């Protein structure tokens, strides 16, 4: 129980695999899984709050990718520094039982379990229909996000190494 300073570094793709563009975050995770950034564990979650909380607990750095529905055009990518400020809750869909990603992150913050580095990439979804495939703009965005994520993590690692050199 409680926060454990394990120093884990994680990438988590969040979403429902059977609801169209909602799977976008998980697809990004799959793109990173075969060659994960060094020192990072890559996983997929369905968004259930307590499972995600357990994943965040004790992590030193977390990069989360989720689909969102803010009203922007499908495929638009937003980046949020969740360690610095709450996510805009209207941007992120609520999960079943009403605890969506924004609420889960706030729960982690309230319980002092939020990793000191916590970055969220949000991909605007177009269709959340049951059984639907990724819509074309979202399918294009997932590859972009995977590369941005790799670049961001590499840059941060480089900065850290330079700091410790």
């Amino acid at each position: 129980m409680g926060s454990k300073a394990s120093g884990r570094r994680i990438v988590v793709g969040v979403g429902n695999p059977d609801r169209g563009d909602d799977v976008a975050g998980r697809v990004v995770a799959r793109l990173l899984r075969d060659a994960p950034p060094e020192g990072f564990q890559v996983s997929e979650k369905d968004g259930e709050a307590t499972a995600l909380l357990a994943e965040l607990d004790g992590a030193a750095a977390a990069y989360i990718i989720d689909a969102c529905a803010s009203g922007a055009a499908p495929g638009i990518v937003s980046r949020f520094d969740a360690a610095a400020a709450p996510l805009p809750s209207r941007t992120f869909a609520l999960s079943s039982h009403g605890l969506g990603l924004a609420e889960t992150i706030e729960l982690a913050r309230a319980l002092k379990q939020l990793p000191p580095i916590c970055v969220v990439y949000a991909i605007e979804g177009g269709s959340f229909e049951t059984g639907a495939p990724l819509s074309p703009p979202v399918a294009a965005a997932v590859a972009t996000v995977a590369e941005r994520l790799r670049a961001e993590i590499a840059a941060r690692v480089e900065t850290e190494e330079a700091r410790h050199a």
Partner: protein
Amino acid sequence: MAVKTIKVDYLARVEGEGALKVIIRDGAVASAELRIFEPPRFFEAFLRGRAFVETPDIVARICGICPVAYQMSAVQAIENALGVDVGAPLRDLRRLMYCGEWIESHTLHVYMLHAPDFLGYEGAVEMARDHGDVVRRGLALKKAGNAIISLLGGREIHPINVRVGGFYRTPRRRELQPLAEELKWARDAALETVRWAARFDFPERERDYEFVALRHERDYPFYEGRIASTRGLDIAPDQFDAHFEETQVERSTALHARRKGGGAYLVGPLARYNLNFDRLSPLAKDAAREAGLGPVCANPYRSILVRAVEVLYACDEALRLIDAYEESEWPTVGTPPRAGVGFGATEAPRGLLYHRYQLAADGTIAEARIVPPTSQNQPSIEEDLRRFIGGWLDLPEEDLRHRCEQTVRNHDPCISCATHFLRLELEHGQ
């Protein structure tokens, strides 16, 4: 006539979407409707034409919170059609798995969804800021339930290890020991949960419900039993269709169930508790008494307390089952296909879950019927709203909305789920 609409966050990744409409005329509640507009999911149609062996994995997808319930009702119904009895060791293992689901589902509801209503918080996040240790206890308790399902089901959500005839793999006795250690902590935490919830301030509201739940000759029921009611019903699961009917109402994509020739009834923790108090373990009974619960509770606002007692029971029962566990020689029994009709009823965390399957001679599913607890409780939830909120109409609108939501949350509906996403229309007319 004034119509006020309070909107809440946009919903996308949800298992259910719901709304409430309460019409108040001349200072009294004229009507209350729980509207469920989630698209129909057609699971019964998906099952038709599939081999019966596929059923546990298909029905596990119906719900991310209570997949074990769907699996357990399904496998028993199909085994009933096949004339198969899996025997005591496999039955006990299934009960153990069901304990895990009760612990995780009930704990989620008690701590994250329902407790904020009683402690005056908007939700679990706000509650966690002031009661971090309590929320951490709830999360760890839920995790103990997840651990059971992970071990027996192969994974926490939508388990994959349940099959018609038993399991694909049964655990070795030594695998259960770490679980037992976690569950001993969980049992203490569950007892603390009962004591904590007992201090809440409960609205004094009661109704003369017809409570319907399974009743078993020995066990507090989740896995099996006859279907009983507090008004004298006592039938085998294969008689369900003769006594209950579902009807469609325009405002809901979930069917409404009623007793034939009767009316609304209530399934869930209160029903189980009221029909089976004598079947609880001594520890759970003592905790219930200490918490001020008698053998009968007709106040749905106290359902949080009954859920806490059921979590304690589930931890206690899980430990008993682990202690008594004997490894089976085979994880499954033979299930040769044959034509037939089978019935299964178990107790999902939210209440009675009935399945019926008609099989063709080659084991193909010809017809499937699934009656989930939430559809059975919808008429009673609406009746609760009509009866209970009349005394709160003078409250400010936000407070009244909160009371309405709390009244729905008492029953932990799975389709429209619980926390703060009901859109409420209050219509004041003359």
